[in-house]
């Protein structure tokens, strides 16, 4: 194992996040986990979306690609397929992942791509100054919905579980020790690992605050009656508590990643492989057009 320090993962960039933002906790937990696992920064690619959470890549000294709104997961799949030796992490918010990018979330889940997806879920659009997000509560009043949100929220955990996710966890940004553990589990998981993080927006969300979560969250990791090995049990647990849970919710030990299931797909990274086509192969391919 190479010696990797926290310093290796720091950048010179000053954070744009508001003081007290939940995303600091997510970043810190991720950096600590990478250091603990001894993964050098050049072996990590972070694909970030648009929004406050999308700035993640600005503050961590890995390879970073900051893409268009909502498309972190297909971009991350591209990175993984090009170089499967990389640890590929997609990071985004609830708007990026469950509004504009919802489509890709469900498909990434069912493909079981070898990407770790960390969502910083603050139940609000922060960067555009406080509109309801797809995870905002029913009735939530904001400037763009002054009479209250008439829509029901997306339930990310239930959605992932029913779509066939093989690793589902939820963390809380002020419980860094647990979040680091969940992130570590995600990294070790072959296939798509989804870590939803309840990450309060201190500026625009006056409902889903640190205090709110401290009161409401039930820690399944500490629940002796809970076993994260049954999809049905997991769905029941998150439904019962309206997703106000933390911990490892579900884990399928038989998970096979998309890139391992692709027929004939190279076991070594495509980047760096000899890509010239042999004259004999070419002649054979041409012959099929006679």
């Amino acid at each position, binding site marked *: 194992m190479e010696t990797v320090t926290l310093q290796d993962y720091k950048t*010179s*960039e000053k954070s744009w996040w508001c003081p007290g933002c939940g995303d600091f906790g997510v970043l810190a937990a991720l950096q600590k986990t990478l250091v603990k696992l001894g993964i*050098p*920064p*050049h*072996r990590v*690619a972070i*694909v970030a979306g648009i929004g406050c959470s999308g700035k993640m*890549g*600005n503050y961590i*000294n*890995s*390879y*970073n*690609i*900051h*893409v*268009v709104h*909502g*498309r972190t*997961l*297909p*971009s*991350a*799949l*591209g*990175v*993984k*397929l*090009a*170089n499967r*030796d*990389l640890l590929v992490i997609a990071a985004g918010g609830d708007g990026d992942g469950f509004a504009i990018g919802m*489509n*890709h979330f469900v*498909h990434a889940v069912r493909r079981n791509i070898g990407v770790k997806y960390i969502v910083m879920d603050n139940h609000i659009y922060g960067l555009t100054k406080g509109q309801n997000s797809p995870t905002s509560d029913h009735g939530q009043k904001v400037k763009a919905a002054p009479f209250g949100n008439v829509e029901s929220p997306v339930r990310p955990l239930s959605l992932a579980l029913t779509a066939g996710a093989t690793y589902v966890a939820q963390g809380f940004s002020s419980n860094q020790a647990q979040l680091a553990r969940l992130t570590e589990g995600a990294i070790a998981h072959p296939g798509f690992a989804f870590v939803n993080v309840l990450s309060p927006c201190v500026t625009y969300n006056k409902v889903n605050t640190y205090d709110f979560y401290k009161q409401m969250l039930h820690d399944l990791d500490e629940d002796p009656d809970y076993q994260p090995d049954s999809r049905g049990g997991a769905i029941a647990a998150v439904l019962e508590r309206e997703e106000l849970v933390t911990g490892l919710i579900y884990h399928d030990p038989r998970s096979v990643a998309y*890139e391992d299931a*692709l*027929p*004939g*797909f*190279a076991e070594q*990274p*495509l*980047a*760096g*492989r000899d*890509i*010239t*086509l042999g*004259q004999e*192969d*070419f002649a054979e*391919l*041409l012959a099929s*057009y*006679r």
Partner: protein
Amino acid sequence: MPKSLAWMIGGDQGEGIDATGDVFGRVLSRLGYCIYGYRHFSSRIKGGHTNFTVRIAADRVLAPQANVEVLVALTQETIDRNGHLLLSGAPLLADSQLKPVLPDGCEARLVEIPLTQFVREVGAAVVRNMVAVGGSAALFGLPLDAFEAYAREKFERKGETVALQNVEALRRGHAFIEELGLRGRFSLPAPRPRERYLMTGNDSLALGALAAGCRIMAAYPITPATDIMENLAGLFPRFGGAVCQMEDELAAITLVIGANYAGARAMTATSGPGFSLMQEGIGLASMAEIPAVVVDTQRVGPSTGMPTKNEQSDLLAAVFGGHGEGQRIVIAPGTAVQAFEDGFEAFNLADRYQCPVIVLSDLALAQWLQSVENLPLGGHAIDRGAIVAQEELDRLTGEFERYRLTEDGISPRALPGMPKGQFLATGVEHASSGKVSEAPQNRISQMEKRSRKLDPLRARAGAIETSRMDDAEVAIVCFGSIVGAVDEAVELLRQEGVRAGRVQVRQLWPMPDIPLATALGGAAKVLVAEQNATGEMRQLMRIAGLEDDRYRSLVHFDGTLLTPGRVVAAVQELSVKEGV
């Protein structure tokens, strides 16, 4: 003897009309003829009229012919719709079961052939089409054994009985025409046998991409681009690559960007509607300077348009689509050989210039069969462009400057996995380090850097191709698949004493203004021919300063492929009106 002959088969969709056209064309190709196989079809799976025409010549043909010499009709609708394409006395082979009737004014010779009855006698595994192919072989006086050999080869894997039944079907059809005394009713010009392949532009483009080292293809199915995905899905597993059928084109383009960022060669292929969806992603590739190859096989637009008809109306969207001012390279092949070349070269351009490269194909090129000689694998070398050396990264004391301001605007990139090369690639405006910057001076430097890197392309070798231009008084400028029709028109015009020549623009952006101005310098008239309503290429030429009182437009946008006759007529009209 005519230079070429055309054979058409028509019926309902789902009856194997395309497959039959393919068989007829392939056997003729093996016999040494040059083939152009084109079809008429609709966006439905079964039912509705469809037809396939095989144009047969001794030399290269790449355009439809106005009339057909033989029509095989499996439905009365085929006769009603296409009977007028036959000249007086030309044979119309129709299934006698149809009780076929010629439409008013059609002077074709109706030959009723008991296709259905023969099929019933020969066996269930045979379709009427094979009997008709046998009959057609007789009409053209072609050796039946070539057809039999092909049928055996094609049906071998379905078992010996099936193969034998198909051979028997061919024989029945052949014997029937022979008994009518129609064998050799048409004689074909002497063939010039060569090593030839019969393929579509989608086929050759996919091969070009494979040869260039593309190993990831992400796409969403869409007519007429899907064959590229399907071809590569069959090929890639053998070479360690993967085709990803995505949930939409937004996912396809961003997967391609991710893969190219991480050092693989990756592409997507789509048509107009999908291309519109990709515009935001293409902008990201421009801004973050990430190579990306996007094939747009154009069809009629806007919106769903006419999905199975021809048009070249995405040109301005290819060059200027999307918000902001992003840099793109747009190239347009016109033949299957060029589709191979561009399918290969697109990856070199993308890597060298670190930007999106759009390959503008079109329906006729993408889906219609043409004879190909010598796909030149040897003529191309893979060029991955500027990638920073690991030793250079190892020597760095500070951070790697991915977007360093360089004289030619191209900054070497690091690939994820290279130690000490970490950087942020972002669609946000950034400084030379990759870090976000909104400083006015930085904005100007980075915009100028991204723009100037494409300047040398204005004079790129191969950006235009000319034919018969040495003494041309009329220059016909075109791009894409209509080059075949234009070339044929040039020959027809020359037979009539009009000194015409052709200039094909293969790189549409950056517009190769310098070579174009030179090529067009001696022409008294310049006719810009394109398959769209607003003269999109002419607009681009105007922007590049290529406009004066010699320029005229020929626009064609009814969904059919431009014919040589239409081009000839347009030039003749110029001559009459303006006295060339």
